[in-house]
């Protein structure tokens, strides 16, 4: 027996305390599915100015079938420009218009864009980081890629020494404006002065990719170049219907 017979019995003895602890554990476990005190899974602990790849790497630590999935991304260059993807050993052959690629979450994919603007010989090296994926119906992954647009204005800004950060987000259908997209152009907004574009995009929807354009010529040690080039899948535009997107593991 563990009853304390020497003195006055405490109001809460060990057995009761242990029982209360078990009860607390049980209550917390059973109420876990409805607990919503932590809010939505947004990126407010991150900043758009973090190094490329950092946000996506932390996103992989969250729940979801993200690791190993190749998210289709369509990178569109302005009319007349040439775009090429950095792979092991250098940049690939420049192509006009757009590239349809399968990118992994947290991978930093570097491109070289040339033949844009009024001055000949200009080239910039933007990077694309996918930080989330889409969940289209089966067989429609390539029909609904993440669109990443390289506008002529932003390429010119980068060529003049500016650094452009463009966070592409999936619009919240409850906040979507009843406006049509003209000529397929992606609507965009300037982040307010002093505001982080990633936080602004988090408030408007779900950020899925980050485009960074700078005027610096990358070296072999920069992310996305040389040995650090992540795996990528090139999809043939002519045979998109027959292509298959590799699926990642199912986490639930």
């Amino acid at each position, binding site marked *: *027996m*563990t009853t*304390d017979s020497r003195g006055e019995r405490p*109001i809460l003895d*060990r*057995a009761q305390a*242990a*029982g209360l*602890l078990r009860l*607390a*554990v049980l*209550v*917390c476990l059973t*109420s*876990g*599915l409805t607990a919503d*005190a*932590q809010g939505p*899974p947004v990126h407010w602990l991150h900043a758009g100015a973090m190094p490329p790849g950092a946000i996506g790497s932390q996103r992989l630590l969250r729940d*979801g*079938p993200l690791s190993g999935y190749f998210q289709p991304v369509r990178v569109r260059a302005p009319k007349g420009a040439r775009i090429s993807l950095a792979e092991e050993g250098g940049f690939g052959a420049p192509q006009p218009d757009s590239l349809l690629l399968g990118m992994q979450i947290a991978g930093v994919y570097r491109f070289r864009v040339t033949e844009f603007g009024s001055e000949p010989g200009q080239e910039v090296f933007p990077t694309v980081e996918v930080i989330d*994926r*889409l*969940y*289209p*119906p089966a067989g429609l992954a390539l*029909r*609904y890629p993440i*669109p990443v647009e390289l506008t002529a204005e*932003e390429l010119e*800004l980068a060529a003049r*020494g*500016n*650094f*452009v*950060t*463009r966070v592409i*987000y*999936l*619009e*919240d*259908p409850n906040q*979507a*404006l*009843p*406006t*049509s*997209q003209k000529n*397929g152009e*992606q609507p*965009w*907004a*300037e*982040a307010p002065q002093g*505001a982080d*574009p990633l936080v602004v995009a988090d408030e408007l*929807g*779900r950020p899925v990719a980050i*485009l960074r354009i700078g005027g610096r010529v990358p070296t072999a040690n920069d992310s996305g170049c040389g040995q650090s080039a992540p795996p990528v899948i090139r999809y043939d535009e002519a045979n998109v219907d027959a292509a298959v997107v590799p699926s990642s593991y199912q986490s*639930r």
Partner: protein
Amino acid sequence: MNTSGANFGFWISDCGLRTSPTRNPQSEIRNSAAALPVWWRYVLVAAATLILCSCQALPPLPLPPQDGQSAAADATTSESPVVVSDSSPQNAPVATMELTETRELSAQEITPTFSFRPPNVVIGQTIQPAVGDESTAQCNCACNSCGRPSWIGPGDEYLCDGGDFGLPAGVRADWTVDGVEQEDTVAHYDTVSGNVIVTPSNRVCIYAPRFAAVRRVESVAAEERRLLIGVAEDDLNLANARKAQPVAHLTQRHAVAIDLGEQPANLFRSRQQAGGLEDLLATIDVKSTLAAYAALQIIRTGEVVGSEKSKLERSVQNAVTWSGDQAVQVVFENKQAIAAVGVKQPGIVYENGEPSSPRLRLVKIASTNHALPGEEVEFTLRFDNIGDQVIGNVTIVDNLATRLEYESQSAKSSTAAGFSAVPNGEGSTVLRWEIKDPVKPADGGILQFTCRVR
């Protein structure tokens, strides 16, 4: 020996209260525990509770359905009894396929013309949906309680529409409908006994992701330049205003620009010509052939053919996936109709569970279940009275989602029906069909309209 108490004593001693490693653990436990004040134990319990509760995993995001048809099926089969019967109208007359452009109704014309309303009309009465409908009416299609554990991904890639959220919908004496917020989908109708029933539809989702971007341009040089320009402008403005005043020249420039922008008067005149309105009111006979997805026997004649079941299943699923279908509800003799989803027949059959009761079958199919912004989707509705009594005042109201844009002049009907497309103030449109004539047994019709995805 109370084992749990002993373990708890170990736990306390491990928290820093152990004094000597050579002592007997059991006696140490008792001593240390006895030395603890009571309030300290309460603090420990509270701290443990707080820590455990703060470590809960995030709740899953709203998830889309894998197939839209199951949403409607759940609304009717979860609790309500499913009544399945072979109700194919074998002797159903062949409906005419001459689709006519439905003319737009004025505000005065919207008053229903169904004539056998008895004097004891109850206006504004709202009857709750059927037992099975309540789950979908109150529940987002993407939530977990809908019973689809196999969903993957959040629901923000889908457009959801349907149901009656916010204020409950109701019908006023002047036949205006209140409480139909954006994305709400309700149906109201009159019963033979004179009641006006408002019933929400199920909530459905479509896959149509749309992307946007937030940009930020960072440059130290640009900020310095802004400050310099601001100072220079102030100085130059003052000096120029006092010395020389070439105002006339500047005024002339501004005037030209304004005149160019404010004189599209010709456009307005042409839009307001009477000829345009006459075109809208004119009846345009469209002897159209149904598209491939709708060229089914059940759409043409209302007759169910077994060989078309696979095609119809796919098209019905498209429709359920695409839009908030107006679940036409029927209440007969003050009894709530039951929506029955049968496994032997397509569509939804509404009945009150009694034999020989009037029933309405509604089949809605769509040309596709997904689309990119800018693409069109055509919807086809086939309704049939497969009961043995006349059904009247059938009204279908569809408040389109924000990103679904109704294509003007695309509504067609095979029967006499009043149609109105009214902006809902949110940028989308409310579509309303009012079947003018009572629908006799074994009779039916076809409705069609087209939307463009924004």
